[in-house]
């Protein structure tokens, strides 16, 4: 273990990152990212030209259904895609002006965990069952900072206190299964912020938790972000979670960003039919009809994404132009908004009427259950 730590410290820090200043551009700038999964059933195009950026202190939400590519995006940024079957086939991920995708693995590892950290959905399975939580947090200090065991342990306890785990000193010796769901997620958060990362990616951090605990965890993330000024990427399918925390929202569908807007603007007036569908599907108390509204159909099979706009089989506004290539580009609408829909202006102006007769076979190609695993 000691030799590993030594190896770690002899690695050269990635060059160029330290000369970066916010004037040079965005802290994180993802351009035209493409990821595919090569499976036995064919090539699944998980991400197809996603572009977005994040600045310091900013909260960006990536919103989408299962299989929309939001988690894969995070894994591609972190460089923890399972290869095979996942491959980044194009694009750039600039962090502090350096393209992470071009860094050799040993330098990329210096970024991972230290400068860009990540927390996961299910903390019970995401924490190692055979090591104490104190050990797992302390590992960050021991391996990245070369601290000795006792220093790292007391640093870990401080972190546990910082994320409001009661009796941190005693609980550091407990194993993950001995904690409640909310406390486990706090442990994950403590581990991720150990080395003061500049970006924290939270992949569905509250999905596995009950509602009251969800709010506490989101509150904690907000507090920590305010304290440290880190950029936060919040990956979720839960519109309720996003509303409070995110400054900006990217809506993903079939591996593309179909709408990007400030959260207020997006909630007030969606500029893409998919976003509109998502917002309409939130159950409301003041609903007059008894039925819940949902977007018909399922996300497309990523091995056979429909021609034209990938949302067209489920879109109530879809016209002929939507069903033929090229797919609608993501166009700037001004005011930091952009949308990838042929009829975005009409939609925003409220002049877009649904096509009366919707094709009965709205379900283009349901995603087989096996594939969802890859995309999540």
């Amino acid at each position: 273990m000691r030799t590993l730590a030594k190896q770690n410290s002899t690695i050269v820090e990635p060059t160029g990152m330290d000369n970066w200043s916010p004037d040079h551009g965005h802290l994180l700038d993802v351009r035209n990212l493409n990821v595919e999964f090569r499976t036995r059933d064919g090539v699944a195009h998980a991400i197809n030209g996603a572009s977005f950026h994040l600045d310091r202190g900013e909260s960006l939400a990536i919103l989408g259904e299962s299989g929309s590519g939001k988690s894969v995006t995070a894994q591609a940024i972190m460089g923890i895609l399972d290869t095979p079957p996942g491959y980044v086939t194009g694009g750039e991920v600039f962090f502090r002006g350096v393209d992470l995708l071009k860094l050799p693995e040993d330098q990329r590892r210096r970024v991972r965990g230290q400068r860009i950290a990540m927390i996961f959905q299910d903390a019970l399975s995401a924490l190692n069952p055979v090591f104490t939580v104190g050990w797992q947090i302390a590992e960050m200090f021991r391996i990245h900072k070369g601290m000795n065991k006792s220093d790292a342990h007391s640093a870990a306890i401080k972190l546990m206190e910082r994320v409001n785990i009661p009796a941190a000193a005693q609980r550091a010796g407990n194993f993950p299964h001995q904690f409640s769901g909310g406390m486990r997620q706090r442990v994950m958060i403590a581990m991720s912020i150990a080395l003061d990362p500049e970006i924290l990616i939270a992949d569905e951090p509250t999905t596995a938790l009950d509602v009251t605990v969800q709010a506490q965890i989101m509150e904690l993330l907000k507090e920590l972000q305010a304290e440290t000024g880190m950029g936060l990427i919040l990956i979720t399918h839960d519109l309720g979670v996003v509303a409070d925390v995110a400054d900006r929202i990217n809506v993903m569908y079939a591996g593309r960003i179909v709408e990007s807007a400030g959260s207020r603007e997006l909630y007030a007036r969606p500029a893409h039919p998919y976003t509109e569908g998502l917002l309409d599907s939130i159950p409301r108390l003041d609903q007059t009809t008894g039925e819940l509204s949902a977007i018909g159909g399922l996300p497309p099979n990523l091995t056979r994404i429909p021609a034209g706009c990938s949302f067209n089989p489920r879109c109530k506004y879809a016209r002929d132009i939507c069903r033929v290539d090229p797919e609608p580009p993501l166009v700037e609408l001004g005011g930091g908004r952009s949308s990838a829909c042929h009829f975005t202006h009409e939609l925003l102006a409220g002049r877009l009427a649904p096509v009366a007769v919707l094709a009965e076979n709205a379900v283009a190609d349901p995603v087989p259950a096996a594939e969802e695993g890859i995309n999540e």
Partner: protein
Amino acid sequence: MGTYILRRILQMIPVVIGTTFLIYWMVFSLGDPTVGRCGERPCPESYVARLHEEYNLDKSLPEQYVRYMGKVLQGDLGTSFNGNAVIDQLATRWPVTIRLAVIAIIFEAVIGIAAGLLAGLRRRSFWDTLVFVTTLVIISIPSFVLGSVAQMVFGVRLGWFPVTATQGTWQQLLLPGLVLGSLSMAYVARLTRNSLSENLSADYVRTARAKGMSAGRVVGVHTFRNSLIPVVTFIGADFGALMGGAIVTERIFNIPGIGGYIYHSINTKDATAVVGTITLLVLVFLVMNLIVDLLYGALDPRIAHD
């Protein structure tokens, strides 16, 4: 922990009584154990009467059993029909069997885990296929074929190893140990391979990578221990089984161990020797199982022994 061990030991009591009673019943009560003691001719009346007297054969089965167990508890496993104390036989034979078991276990653990790691880390590679095919061949061959062929090739033809192991020394037992351990080695290799490749796609391994840990540390520290949990359980249980001797292997290499003794005793209808030996084997197996369970708890903190 202490109460757990105590509880487990108390639980052993009914198991020991049940198994030994079954064995006693099968050996002493299903047919007269004195029959066939004197070759082709019937035994003299006086001899039969003496045996009946000594083993309480005229009493009821439960009483016979209780009297027998009473002697066992005092450390007296009885005298076999040829006049040797069973306990003395076991004392000279058990070290040989333990040596054989140790060689087999070391072989199966070291080679099996190494092969499993090689295959599990490079799934669908040449090494994975090689390990798969090799283990398949080993699993398919019956142990008496493997033992006889190894004895013929490495012992007789090539002369690399002693052909038999009549003294039961480490050096003599090397080849029999490898033969004995080879089947379990194949299982260990497959178990390690599957366990490792399953754990490599676990969420906590992804977390370890996201923490910026090196590939070596991700496998060596974060995955290895989790992957070994089922392997250690298997090896531990196997050691318990090997302690009982290996009848086939000991026969092939003429090894003076427990397996050979049981075989011989059954052949000569030596009831005392059979029951005595198996009673002790039951105890050894139960203790080994307890040790494996304790080890399991030490490896996996989710198993609580309290």
